[in-house]
């Protein structure tokens, strides 16, 4: 085969592999399990990002979605990963909520272990479960935990410091 056809095939195969991996029925949101945080970190070696835990039931989280969307518009290179702590069966609602707030393109996960307490502990042994809970990871993956809603000013300041 000509080289560029080979490349095309390779790309196509990669595409197929990615999309044949077991995902939820819904496109955007993936199951967050033991080890998922490591996956998320690995995929971002040397890159800063924001990791936010939230829930459909959390009023402050809902308030924050618009602020996050605004920040994403303002900083196109901002890498935001959102993890819902709702029961896995709510993946559809999670997708809908993100879409409603212009966050359809965000990498989204949902808690999918039977024991959420252990999953939280694996993420952070000093996290009591309050939401929203955000972790600001710098390029070296040192992280700063923040409990409560985060503001566009918060994010602006962080972006200025880490320059994603």
């Amino acid at each position, binding site marked *: 085969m000509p080289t560029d056809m080979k490349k095309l095939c390779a790309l196509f195969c990669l595409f197929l592999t990615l999309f044949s991996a077991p995902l939820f029925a819904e496109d955007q949101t993936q199951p967050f399990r033991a080890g998922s945080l490591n996956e998320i970190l690995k995929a971002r070696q040397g890159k800063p990002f924001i990791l936010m835990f939230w829930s459909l039931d959390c*009023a*402050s989280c809902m308030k924050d979605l618009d602020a996050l969307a605004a920040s994403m518009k303002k900083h196109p290179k901002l890498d935001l990963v959102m993890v819902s702590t709702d029961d896995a069966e709510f993946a559809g609602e999670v997708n809908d909520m993100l879409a409603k707030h212009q966050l359809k393109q965000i990498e989204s996960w949902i808690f999918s272990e039977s*024991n*959420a307490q252990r999953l939280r502990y*694996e993420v952070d042994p000093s996290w009591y*479960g309050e939401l929203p809970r955000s972790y600001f990871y710098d390029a070296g993956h040192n992280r700063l935990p923040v*409990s409560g809603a985060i*503001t566009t000013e918060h994010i602006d300041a962080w972006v200025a410091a880490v320059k994603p």
Partner: protein
Amino acid sequence: MPNGFERYAGMDVKLPVSAAFGPDRRLWRIVPTTDHVYVDFSSDYGKTFSPPVPVNVERVPIRTQSEYRPQIAVDPAGRVYVAYPAFGLQPWTTYLSVSENRGQHFSMPEPLSDKARTANSFQAVLAIGPKGDLHAFWHDEREGADEARGNDIFHTALDAKGKTLQSNQKIVDGVCSCCRLAVDFDTDGRPVLITRFIYPGNVRDHGLLKPQDDRAEWTAVRATDDDWKIEACPVHGPALSVGRDGRYHIAWFTQGNKRQGLFYAHSDDQGRRFSEPVALGDSKQLPGHPDVLAMGERVVLAWNEFDGRKNRVMVKQSGDGGNTWSEAIATAESDSDADFPFLLTDGQAIFLSWNSQNKGYRLIRID
């Protein structure tokens, strides 16, 4: 089926089971499942339970969680009152029902709030006063729901015969939006409430509420000063017990600038001033979800700790009204999901009431 739920085979029993002793020393429980709540009782201190009696006939999605608890209270005449949150007329609707025949049948559940059709009502707590009066307090969104401003708390009270004394009275606003309420009664027979408020600067510390007289005016005093600035409801409620001597005992969780973790303090002037907060538990084991119970000179504290694998209920005791304390002792453990620990009394002894996924429901006497 796990311990204490042998009669619930095939039912999807949820963790937050609330319990209360009745005047006949029966232990009454309200047990939530996916779309029903049931009531049962034990006459042998939790070894065996009666067949469950359903409260609601029609299915409704029950919305209990450990922090959004079903309520049960038994008055001196043996009337069993229950309240529980469900996805009903509104996404959050609290229903109230009563049994006038010692738990054999329950009345058709009615919304606690008279505006339940148009506004959420949730985080209800039921408590029986020393005169046998029933008090219900809850978060009510009829006058608006603003996460920044805080929630309104409403109050309904029935006398010992079940006649309405107060109905749907707003008693305070500015309460942190999903905070659980804890209630006890002062030596004058009036209810005292503790919960998290939103103070200036978006500081979420605790406050105490008490009625000024037998009418609707309630006074609020600030009970904790931890300087916890957080733009969220931490969903981690406090505990309160008023001793026979009028001493207020409180336990609470905070991640404030001034202190972080779980704390205890007491007040001898109805909350105007509190003793220096005492830290509870091993800070490396997420100590949380406290309860406190004062009985005579005895004061008992219980809370949960988690080491990444096991949940442990820790218990600490005082024999001198809360001035000095024993070392905390691990009293029960579970390596599965667990509910929060609660302290109950049958008038003579103090018990730990605790439900967990793998070991089921346990009532453990605290000596």
